[in-house]
């Protein structure tokens, strides 16, 4: 009879409590990792901005560097770098990136572009393999705390095919960390080096801004672009641009990895915070149900005892009045 339900609820409370401990711990870890990642994003900014300055100065002067610069018109082979996490338990973090990536690929396949993938994060690898996409290279164990060496490894796998002319376009899809409260999935052109207006824009708008590198060559009409014309280059801007390709890719990938990592930790922190909250709620509900069950069983027991006593009183001699229950039982059995 009673007790069964109570015991069951007590067991559930214990199990939810154990889960809650885990989610709470994960929440705290994610929060501290996020703070750390934010610091590293800030630390990487001077370098990335520096590389962008070099790129801007060089791109303005380089002649005949269309292969390395701007948005290619027609692309047969393209690479897409997708950055997600190795683990789940981060709410919609992985799915947002992966779904956007798949949509992006499908859209551009209609224009005759074949995409292959370079994935960072175990979740991306399994996702694209499942969807029957060709994964050229996949990296794991990077997203918890990305290092520059990690970015370098990823960059190697894309710079090689790009410089060899095997792919005409490399794009990057990852989660930008705008602030602790705001992250956004973003698709960016990585190679060829985006033209200036593209970079400033941040968001890629297809074909909108192909910048003509040609007129920048002759010094004549260069006055319009101000002081850029005064730069001295060592080696020539064209050669510099070629050297910038891997460096720029590394810098952007590094920042993307850091931002993705911060976003992942944020997403996980949020997911785990709400899981902890859920656990709290569940525990409250269960505890209420358990208390009610216990109360019920106590009430039932009392009712039974009282009922039994009543019955005894009626069946025993009436003059005895309301004797104590124990006496009644004793007498009955005697």
């Amino acid at each position: 009879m009673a007790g069964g339900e109570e015991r069951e609820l007590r067991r559930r409370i214990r199990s939810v409590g154990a889960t809650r401990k885990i989610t709470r711990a994960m929440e705290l870890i994610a929060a501290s990792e996020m703070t750390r990642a934010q610091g590293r994003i800030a630390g990487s900014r001077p370098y990335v901005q520096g590389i962008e300055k070099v790129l801007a100065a060089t791109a303005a002067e380089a002649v005949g560097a269309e292969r390395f610069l701007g948005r290619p018109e027609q692309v047969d082979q393209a690479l897409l770098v997708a950055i997600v996490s190795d683990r789940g338990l981060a709410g919609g973090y992985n799915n947002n990136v992966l779904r956007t990536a798949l949509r992006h690929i499908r859209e551009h396949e209609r224009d005759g572009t074949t995409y292959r993938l370079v994935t960072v994060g175990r979740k991306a690898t399994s996702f694209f393999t499942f969807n029957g996409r060709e994964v050229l290279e996949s990296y794991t164990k990077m997203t918890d705390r990305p290092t520059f060496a990690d970015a370098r490894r990823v960059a190697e796998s894309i710079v090689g095919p790009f410089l060899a002319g095997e792919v005409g376009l490399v794009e990057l899809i990852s989660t930008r960390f705008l602030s602790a409260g705001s992250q956004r999935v973003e698709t960016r052109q990585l190679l060829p080096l985006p033209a200036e207006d593209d970079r400033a824009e941040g968001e890629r708008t297809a074909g909108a801004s192909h910048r003509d590198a040609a007129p920048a060559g002759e010094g004549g009409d260069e006055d319009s672009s101000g002081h850029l014309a005064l730069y001295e280059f060592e080696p020539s801007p064209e050669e510099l641009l070629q050297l910038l390709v891997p460096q720029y890719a590394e810098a952007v990938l590094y920042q993307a990895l850091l931002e993705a990592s911060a976003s992942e930790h944020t997403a996980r922190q949020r997911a785990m915070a709400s899981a902890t909250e859920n656990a709290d709620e569940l525990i409250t509900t269960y505890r209420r149900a358990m208390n009610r069950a216990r109360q019920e069983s106590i009430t039932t027991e009392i009712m039974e005892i009282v009922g039994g006593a009543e019955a005894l009183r009626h069946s025993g001699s009436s003059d005895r009045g309301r004797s104590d229950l124990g006496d009644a039982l004793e007498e009955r059995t005697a």
Partner: protein
Amino acid sequence: MATPFHAEVVTPERVLFAGEVDEVLMRTDVGEIAFLAHHTEFVGALDITVVTVRAASGEEGAGGAPAEASGEQQRFAVHGGFVHMANNRLSVLAGVAERAEEIDVARARTALEAARERLGREGPPSAPDRRGAEPSTAEPEAGGTPLTGARLALLAPASAAAALRRAEVRLQAAGASESA
């Protein structure tokens, strides 16, 4: 005479150095270069090189007190990168760079040996033979189009020749000549 100007050595992970300096020396793809204040706007690709920063002497920005003896020198081993000078601010941007005093000399020596051995095995695929820790000036010889200088540093960082250069430069920056 030496007017101080702002210089920084920046890696992706952190800013290694930032401050007022009198002079910065390094080696670009083309050759040795020294930056003083008001150097013309400049963009260059760096070889694997030692970057020497001579910190501004006197009180910072005090109109450049002409102290010949000058402030302390700081050296950095820079594994290729870029240098950008504009508006009297100099940035050295390097994927990998180390402060001289943070260089592990023993490890650098080991790396040097390993690189020599590898280079011996692989042959000189991209770089001309360089002897000693002293980086000699440009030598675009050898068959084909050998990768040298910044091209070696930035396009083939994994090659044995690049590893050798890196080890040499690290030792040089640390002030430990390889024969010691």
